[in-house]
């Protein structure tokens, strides 16, 4: 039993990471209607930026905040310079462009900081809380709290603010959004900025755990996309819940189902994607829309 609880807690810890990246994917999807495949690499790049600020002598929290702000600005610039010229093209074109961004950020990080794995300074104290035989590191609780705050904030923004309403409107129907006077391009830029800031937070909180290298988000991205699809691409809470479920299920399956072990763990999210698409294509908490004409 204790082993089971321990596995669940560890699963929640890895799941929090998947959820954070999934949240960024959901944010871009909900505010621009686009799936950004480069989200993980952008998060990795932001983590490197934070590492660089720290290496220049800033405290790690200050470095993190600066990197998040830089990512916000960078995200808006990226939308303006690279995404806007292609946003009216076919979906495939845009997806290929985000794939290009994926490669670009990966190589850029490798070019600037090299491929040798770097340690990232911890943001939370390294204590471990013991409850009986179950041990939970404070850092895991910290990341989980960050996740809850960000997901809650995001959901409230979408639901209760005017800019949230505008973001959803633009994602669903650009032409009607223009016809009610929403400055669509500004909203799209803001959406990218916020998603990059969120991605940066994800990268920075993940980095102490995964260590820093250009490929660190590679696996995480697959899990995050799985979480976004599983939870519902348009639902922040769905993405968080799904990320946590994937983390836990993966951990349990790896330990209890003999043939999966640690080598075939990656099959767990893929299996969940297939099952979701088969039985509930809109995801756990996603919305299904019926349109009558």
């Amino acid at each position, binding site marked *: 039993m204790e082993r089971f609880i321990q596995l669940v807690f560890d699963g929640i810890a890895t799941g929090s990471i998947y959820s954070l990246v999934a949240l960024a994917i959901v944010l871009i999807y909900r505010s621009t209607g686009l799936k950004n495949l480069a989200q993980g690499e952008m998060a990795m790049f932001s983590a490197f930026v934070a590492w660089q600020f720290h290496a220049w002598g800033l405290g790690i929290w200050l470095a993190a905040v600066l990197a998040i702000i830089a990512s916000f600005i960078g995200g808006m610039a990226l939308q303006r310079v690279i995404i806007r010229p292609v946003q009216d093209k076919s979906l495939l074109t845009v997806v290929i462009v985000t794939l290009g961004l994926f490669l670009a950020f990966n190589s850029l990080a490798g070019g600037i900081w090299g491929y040798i794995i770097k340690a990232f300074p911890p943001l939370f104290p390294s204590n471990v809380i013991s409850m009986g035989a179950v041990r939970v590191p404070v850092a895991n609780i910290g990341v989980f709290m960050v996740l809850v705050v960000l997901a809650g904030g995001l959901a409230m923004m979408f639901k209760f603010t*005017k800019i949230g*309403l*505008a973001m*959803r*409107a633009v994602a*669903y*129907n650009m*032409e*009607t*959004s*223009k*016809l*009610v*006077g*929403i*400055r*669509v391009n500004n909203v799209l830029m803001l959406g990218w900025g916020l998603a990059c800031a969120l991605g940066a937070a994800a990268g920075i909180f993940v980095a102490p755990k995964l260590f820093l290298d250009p490929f660190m988000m590679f696996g995480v991205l697959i899990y995050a996309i799985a979480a976004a699809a599983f939870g519902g691409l348009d639902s922040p809470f769905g993405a968080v819940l799904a990320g946590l479920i994937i983390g836990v299920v993966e951990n349990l399956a790896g330990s209890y189902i003999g043939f999966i072990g640690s080598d075939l763990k990656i099959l767990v999210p893929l299996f969940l994607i297939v099952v979701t698409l088969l039985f509930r294509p809109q995801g756990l908490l996603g*919305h299904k*829309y*019926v*349109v*009558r*004409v």
Partner: protein
Amino acid sequence: MSLLTVENLVASYGAVRVLHGIDFAVEEGQVAVVLGANGAGKTTTLRALSGMVSCKGSIRFDGTELIGRSTEDIVRRRVAHVPQGRGTISQFTVDENLQVGAYIRKDRDGVRDDMERMFRLFPRLQERRSQAAGSLSGGEQQMLAIARALMMSPKLVLFDEPSLGLAPLIVRDLFDTLRQINTELGVTMLIVEQNAQLALEIAQQAFVLETGEIVASGDPESVGKDDAVRRAYLGH
């Protein structure tokens, strides 16, 4: 001075010219209707007014030139547009559609009052206020599209074939509602229609568009009596 004055308006999609220099004016507080067959350029005329196609010539609205301005800027001058095929956000609830319609307004109390007014005007929408717009019937969606456009408290509303795809009884209701909106709220309207008879009944001005040119204009009665118009659009 007219609220809207269009002079020598030329619009094209790429190399294909759709409007060949049309002129017309819409007086404040009136309902103007543009009749014309498919492909005459009716939709293009409205899209030009909303800044959604590139065009040349002059569109003066309320004292300012609209040509060269973005759709968002034109909308902010209180020109509402109900496009063909409804123009609501189908994933949004009725409430959210009305809220987003009032996006450019800052007066929260006024918005709340207007929302109540819309529900009085369209009681069916109140019954369905938390339902997704896409799940409404065609007639209800058109009502919602109109209410959404009115939420910005527009000076001019452009309607693109509001009767398209609706049952005859509902079309009659729709035009009654449009007339009511015009008389009660004093909103100026420019309606593009194929359903000439009903449209002419509520209009004070009429224009007939044929392959990108205005071939007849004047008060609805005389336009309605015009032989060519009767043959082409009224069927008798």
